[in-house]
Every structure is written in C-alpha cells, then in structure tokens.
C-alpha cells in the first residue's frame, strides 16, 4: 500500500486526462507549422509488379501542386533504405537475408500499398486530385500471399537476391534430446495452428510532419512514434537523411501504438526528404485505408506443434515448427518477433525438460509484419496453452490438474530455451482465478445453459511472458542492434519542483502519472509538483522508447537510480545548510534532518540552496541539483498469471458470447492499480479480438480484402463483457522496484483462453481463429453432422 494518497500503489487519477477530456491533446496532426504543405502518396494497386514508367507531367500541372517526387529521385539523392535492426542467423550459421527497402519503390512494387510517388500540395484535397493524374505503368507479376506456399519451388520470387523467399531458417533448443523424449513418451499431442494476421489499428492513424530550417540546416520531425530517439538514430545513421545532431524528432501525444508505432516507416523518411527539397514543412496524415495497407501487421504464423507426456501427465518435451510471414519487407524489429520473442517463451509456466523449435521466416506480397502487442509471446502462449489443454482432454485429465502437475515451483528456473525465470507463484494466481471465476459452480451453469439451447465452455490460459525488455548484453548476444537500457534525468528546480526527463514514451500508458507517483513518494513532495517530460530528442538525451512492457521495469528503475543520486547530492547541500556532517543527514518525507537533533531543512530550502550556492563554494561542491542515470536491467521480468474464459455458444448459429472473464495476474509491484487494471482490460479486448473477430485477409492475388472497419472487425463495446480482474504479487528481483510489467499480459493470455473455452463448449478442437459465429457453426457441423430432417 502507498504511504501517501499519491505514492506507489495509490490509484491516482491521471495527470494527462484533463487535456484529453477537454479536447486539448496535441497529436501530430494537430501540430501546424507555417507554410505547411500536405503529402499524398501514390500507392500500388498491385501486389507484385514491375514499374515500367511513372508519368507525373499531367499531375504536376494540377492546381496546388508544389512538387511530385518519385523513387528514382530518392535514389538519385542517395536516401538510404529502411532497415531491420535485429540480426538473426539461420541454423547453418548464415546471416538472415534482408532485401532492400526503399522509402519509395523505384523499380518494383512488392505489396498493395507500396508507395511509388508522393505529391506535395497546398492541401490534401489538391494532393489527392493530383495523385489521380499520376500515371504508373506496371507490368503485373504473379504474387504469393500464403506463407506456407512462399518457399515452394514454383513460387514467385519477390526479391531477386533472396532465394525461395526465405529470410532465415532458425532454430532453438536441443533437437536430439527432444527426439529421444518423444520416442519414450507415453502420449504425444499434435496440433496445427494458424496464428491469424492482425491489423494493429491504434485509433490515431500514423502521421509525420517534417520541417527544414535553411538557416541552421536542421530538420525537425513530429511523428507518431513510440520511440523517437530510435527513429532519429535510424533515420540519421542508416537512412542518412541528416547527421543525428541536425535532426530533432518529437513524438507529441500519440493515440495508441500497440507496437505498430515502434517502427521507422517510409512516410517519415519521405516527408523529411521532401521538406528539404521543397523548403516548406510537409505533413502526411494516414487515412484509415492507408493504415490498413501500410501499418506493420502482427502475428501471422503457421505452426505444427507436439507435446510429449509420460503416463502421469508430466510433460517430457515440446517441439514446434513455425513458418512466420514477414510480408514484403523486413520491418524494423520484425526478425526478432518470431524467434527470440517467441520460441524463448514456449516453456510457459511449465517444467519442460527439453524443447526444440524451428522457425522459417518468409517474404510474401503482403504488408510488413512486426511486433504487435505481445509480439511473439502471444504466439508462444497460444501454442503451449492449446497443447496443454488438448493434452488434458486427450488424456482424460482435468486441464487445471494437468497444469498443476507441471508448474514450475522453484525459482530461479532455467528453461531449455534461454530464459531464466526469476520469481513467480503460478499456483497462487491459478488458485485465486479459480475462486473468482467460481469454477466449482461451472457444472451447474453448464447444465443451466443447456436448457436454453446453449453450449457452455470454460477455457484456461496460464501464461507467462518476458517483459522489461531488456538486458543490453543479453539482447546484443541474440542479435539486437541496440541496447535496451533506459535513461532518466531528474531536474530539481530552485523552488523544489521536479522535472523528470525519460526516454520512455507514453501513448496511453499514463507515465505522466505513474512516474510522478514514484517521484512524489520518493522525495516526499506533492504529486502536483512533478512533471514528466518525454518524446522530444532535443529535451531527452536518449532513450529506447516504450514497448514490451518495459517502461515500469526499466524506465522507472532509471528514475530510481537518478533519484538515488539526487538524494546523495541533496544531502551534501543539506549538510551545508544545516551546518552538520554529511554523514549525519537523514532524508525522510521530504525533510532533511540531522540525526539525533531537531534541526531540519525542508526539501524546498535545500533545492534553493543548491542553486543560490551561498552556503558552499564551488571548490567543495558543484551548484545545482540535476542527475542523470542510464539503467540496464539484469534480466527480463516474467509477469505471469491465469485467465479463465467462460463462453456460451448458440447451437443453431454458432454465435459465441463471453459470459465471464477472470484475469489474475502477477505483475510484481504495482504503482497504480487503476492504470494496471486498465492495461489488463485493453489487452484482453485485443486478445479476444484476435480470437473471435479480427483477421487480415488478402485475396489470392494479394488484394487486401479486410481493408476498412467495415470488413475488419474491431471489438466494440457490446462484443465484450466487463472483466473480473485480480492480482497476486511476487516481486521481480531484477529491478529495484520489483516491477514486472502489465501492458501485454491481456493480449498474451486471452486468445488461448477463448479458444480453449469454445472448443470445450463444442467438443471439437477443429477451430481456427478468428472463431466467428460462422467458424464456430461450421466446426459444430463438422463435429456433429446434422441428420437429415
């Protein structure tokens, strides 16, 4: 519990809300610069085609057109390609094969929506009119969409330098040990799964506004980014747009990310390039149709998985073979998602002696695929939690019982797939969830439902994830191109108020509130006197941004370290103020005291004295009170928990209703339970969306069929129930606050819980996501064919 109403553990109402509920948020599209022009992209309607010619002559004469730029000019100007920043090596030791990814395609398009030209115009409407007049002559090629067919000998070759469209053939684990375990197993469970492709659909579409200052040769980019510093680094060092110190990236209010705004996208590069060319600010704001085509999608795995068990239901080994679809180009972190963020979590909460996983990553003529809420871990959880549930059913065991028999109970626990779980109590979260969900009463509810023509089912998901991404040396050894520490700078003003500059970025998570809670508690100063600054490379020196539930575990730990330094320095100042020895100064509840005396100085007095510097000389102590810290975590964190989903299926229509949802999660230390619960709710909704509603569909020719909210089903209020959320707590030993992270848990846990529940209800495992009414009805028909009437 919190020691104060605004400290750690208190459900403090959010600082950021006032601007959002009054319409005063400042999102990228809300920023307007003098002389601003608008960018409209000309995009390929073909999934795969050669560009024979682009004729912009008629378009250039349209009203309001400032300029029209093409991929050929981009190449002439030596603007570099976009890159994937995580090196994966194939099992034969060869490095992954990454094709060129120019911001504007010059010679060939590889997916519908690939940009081939950009119109810079006075208004968006004029830009669109002119874009209609750009004539692109394509030679259409055969496309390959299905990842399972991408490696076929007769499949169209997407990139000339990448044979069989295969980016890497990676593996992890001990194949021999797994084979031996399977040979000796009493029971083997085999499943084939498709982890459906998802469109992230943050409600704010992506946007970029670039401005060039001729006088200073500086470029500024406002963009919808989860990590503006990484964007600046990539755009400077790899794209070669400008030196890092001549490029400022500002990510103001960002309307949701879910991973999709981590990446560096072509449009940002093009706006910067165009702004320098036309010498006016250039703004692009995606419309939703473009977002569906160009935001990096999530998931898209095809997997065969097997679980070996002994006669007592003890798991002996797991093996999985996955084909991961990375789309037409390798997005910024795409390579890591189906490898080190996926296979490393296949042990779940279970003691599994050996695991072997093979992953082939392939190119297809579809939008790039990269991290989406959970990124690899939902895919892993779906594999292991479906395997466990199906195994229990096949063995005639209670799925809860089978889980308990295999839970890891001693920590630390080294899994066979890299991860070393440091703390957890899986039985505790399971027990609490069973109570909240009233699992004892399920049989009665099921009989009651049957009387109303409904099939009631219950499904479990005891998930684990690796968050707090991540120890830099560890991820470096796995191929990451960057370190994943976080920075914090704590600036104490002369009046005692505090600004914290963080390299994390909030786009819904409420950092302005939770980070201020930490500072308020630690320094004993009012919550209102703390401001959190983020999202501007000119203000914050460097940071790695927000994703992978890392802001609490890594970002706040950096603040703790900086606050440690602040306290040490403030004690030195206090010693002069109180005319005592530094070693005798104690700091508590915002007050400095001399041990064993009634002499004290308030926080504000010490802050002021640090700056006026009247009580000490520079030779003894530097004036000022500002400290910086870079915190590198010692391990991942391992949030875990149990989600229980109860559904009712209408036998006649297949329509499935979630009638009860229980989530009990262990996130370690909770800073703000209100915000944590909100993160859980949102994660569950996205997981339920994947399980029951959402799915990106391309036609065989590569046309995006699910390209609007009319056709891509987003969960709406009436699709979801209210959720029962509970918490258990084991502290993470890997960071000073004991935080594990909560942002992705719901999306990781929930798909398996839903599918386990529906398959329980209908008595068939033959059900793929999304389990729409039609899919469930069809599964019912396959399972129990109707007799002729």
């Amino acid at each position, binding site marked *: 519990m919190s020691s104060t109403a605004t400290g750690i553990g208190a459900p403090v109402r959010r600082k950021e809300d006032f601007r959002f509920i009054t319409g005063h948020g400042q999102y990228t599209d809300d920023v307007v610069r003098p002389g601003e022009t608008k960018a409209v992209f000309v995009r390929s309607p073909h999934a795969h085609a050669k560009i024979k010619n682009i004729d912009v002559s008629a378009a250039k004469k349209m009203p309001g057109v400032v300029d029209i730029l093409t991929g050929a000019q981009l190449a002439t100007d030596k603007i570099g390609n976009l890159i994937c920043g995580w090196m994966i090596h194939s099992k034969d030791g060869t490095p992954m094969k990454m094709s060129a990814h120019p911001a504007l395609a010059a010679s060939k398009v590889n997916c*519908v929506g690939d940009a081939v030209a950009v119109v810079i115009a006075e208004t968006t409407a004029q830009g669109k009119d002119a874009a*209609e*007049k750009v004539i692109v002559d394509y030679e259409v090629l055969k496309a390959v969409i299905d990842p399972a067919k991408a490696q076929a000998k007769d499949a169209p070759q997407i990139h000339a330098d990448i044979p069989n469209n295969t980016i890497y053939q990676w593996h992890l684990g001990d194949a021999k040990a797994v084979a031996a375990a399977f040979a000796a197993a009493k029971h083997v469970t085999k499943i084939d799964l498709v982890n459906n492709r998802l469109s992230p659909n943050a409600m704010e579409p992506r946007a970029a506004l670039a401005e060039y200052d001729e006088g200073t040769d500086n470029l500024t980019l406002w963009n919808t980014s989860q990590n503006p510093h990484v964007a600046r680094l990539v755009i400077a060092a790899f794209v070669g747009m400008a030196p890092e110190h001549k490029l400022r990236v500002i990510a103001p209010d960002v309307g949701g990310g879910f991973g999709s705004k981590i990446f560096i996208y072509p449009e940002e590069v093009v706006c910067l390039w165009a702004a320098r060319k036309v010498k006016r600010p250039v703004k692009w704001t995606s419309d939703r149709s473009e977002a569906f085509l160009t935001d990096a999608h999530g998931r898209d795995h095809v997997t065969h998985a097997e679980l070996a068990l002994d006669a007592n239901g003890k798991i002996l080994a797991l093996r999985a073979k996955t084909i991961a679809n990375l789309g037409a180009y390798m997005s910024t972190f795409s390579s890591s998602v189906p490898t080190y963020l996926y296979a490393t979590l296949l042990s779940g909460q279970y003691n599994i002696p050996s695991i072997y996983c093979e992953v082939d990553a392939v190119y297809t003529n579809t939008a790039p695929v990269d991290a989406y809420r959970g990124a690899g871990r939902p895919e892993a959880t779906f594999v292991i939690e479906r395997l466990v549930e199906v195994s229990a059913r096949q063995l005639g065991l209670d799925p809860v019982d089978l889980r308990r028999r295999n839970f890891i109970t001693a920590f630390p626990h080294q899994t066979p797939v890299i991860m070393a779980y440091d703390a957890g109590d899986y039985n505790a979260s399971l027990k609490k969830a069973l109570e909240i969900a009233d699992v004892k009463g399920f049989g009665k509810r099921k009989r009651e439902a049957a009387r109303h023509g409904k099939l009631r089912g219950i499904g479990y998901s005891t998930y684990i994830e690796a968050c707090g991404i991540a120890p830099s040396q560890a991820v470096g050894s796995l191929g990451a191109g960057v370190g994943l520490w976080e920075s914090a700078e704590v600036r104490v003003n002369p009046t005692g108020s505090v600004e914290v500059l963080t390299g994390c970025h909030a786009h819904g998570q409420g950092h302005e509130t939770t980070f201020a809670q930490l500072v308020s508690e630690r320094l004993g100063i009012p919550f209102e006197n703390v401001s959190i600054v983020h999202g501007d490379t000119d203000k914050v020196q460097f940071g790695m941004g927000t994703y992978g539930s890392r802001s609490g575990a890594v970002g706040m730990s950096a603040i703790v370290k900086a606050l440690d330094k602040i306290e040490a320095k403030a004690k030195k100042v206090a010693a002069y103020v109180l005319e005592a020895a530094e070693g005798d100064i104690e700091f508590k509840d915002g007050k400095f005291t001399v041990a064993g005396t009634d002499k004290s100085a308030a926080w504000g007095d010490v802050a002021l004295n640090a700056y006026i510097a009247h009580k000490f000389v520079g030779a003894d102590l530097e004036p000022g009170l500002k400290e910086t810290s870079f915190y590198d975590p010692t391990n991942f964190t391992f949030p875990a928990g149990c989600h229980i989903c109860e559904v009712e299926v209408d036998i006649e229509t297949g329509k499935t209703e979630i009638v009860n949802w229980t989530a009990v999660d262990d996130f370690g230390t909770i800073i703000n339970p209100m915000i944590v619960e909100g993160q859980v709710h949102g994660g569950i909704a996205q997981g339920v969306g994947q399980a029951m509603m959402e799915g990106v569909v391309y*036609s065989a*020719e590569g*046309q995006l069929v699910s*390209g609007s909210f009319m056709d891509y089903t987003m969960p709406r209020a009436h699709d979801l129930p209210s959720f029962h959320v509970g918490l258990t707590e084991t502290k993470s030993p890997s960071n000073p606050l004991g935080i594990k992270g909560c942002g992705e848990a719901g999306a990781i846990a929930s798909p398996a819980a839903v599918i386990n529940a529906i398959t329980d209800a209908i008595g068939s495992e033959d059900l793929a996501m999304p389990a729409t009414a039609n899919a469930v009805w069809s599964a019912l028909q396959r399972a129990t064919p109707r007799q002729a009437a």
Partner: protein
Amino acid sequence: MAMTMTGEVQLPASREVVYAKLNDAEVLKACIPGCEELIKSSDTEMSAVAVTKIGPVKARFKGKVHLTDLDPPNGYRISGEGDGGVAGFAKGGATVALTEKDGGTLLTYNVEAQIGGKLAQLGQRLVNGAAKKVADDFFKNFQAHIAAG
C-alpha cells in the same frame, strides 16, 4: 479479388446480326454503362474510357479491350483491363456464345473479373452486385438496341 458471373439474354434477331452488333464499336459504346469513349484501333482491339462507381469508390477507367476466339456467328471472347489510377484497376473478360432459339438468338455469357487497389479494399463487398448491374445494364441496352433494329 476475383469473381465470376453467368447469364443469358434472348434477342429478337439472327445470330449474324447479333454478332455484327457485338463487333460494332458504336453499338458497344452506346450499351456499356458509363462508357465515354470507345475507339477501335483494329478489328480486335479497342481503347476505352468508362466511369464506374462501386460503393464509395468512383473512378474513370482507361483501358484496352480485346476480342479473341472470334467464331462468327457462334460467339467470341471479349476481355479488357482498365486502370483507374488511385482507385485501382479492373480486368476481366466474358465468353459470349450465340445459339439459335425461338426464331431469335440466345446470348449466354460467362464473365470473370478481377479488381484491385482501393476498389478491392473498400468496394469488394459491393463488387459482385456492381458487376452484375453493369452486365445487366449492358445487356438490357443491347437488347433494346437489337429490338430497335
């Protein structure tokens, strides 16, 4: 996005007359809904401009029309591809067969079509209906043209 569609229409004229009209650019231009331009560059090739609206997407398609498998007076195959710019593209063809029936001609058609780009993204649920309407309108117009002599 691919789709197929079949249909038939009874015409009050001989197969020879119907076949000749099916090769007459002026007749085709008058009968193709939204057709603004149809210029014959050879006996089997035409260039065309037509405006089509599918759901929220309206586009002016510029494209080529080819006549193949010419088998007078039994039928032919007409195919084409149109580029609608930002709206996307449409391409497709129809096999047209003429048989004698009830003193006139029964025209049966077998259409397959493909659309892409924004048309497919936003209009795909409406495409079948829209394509059927285009075909219905065409043959209604064509029927009227034949009836008028």
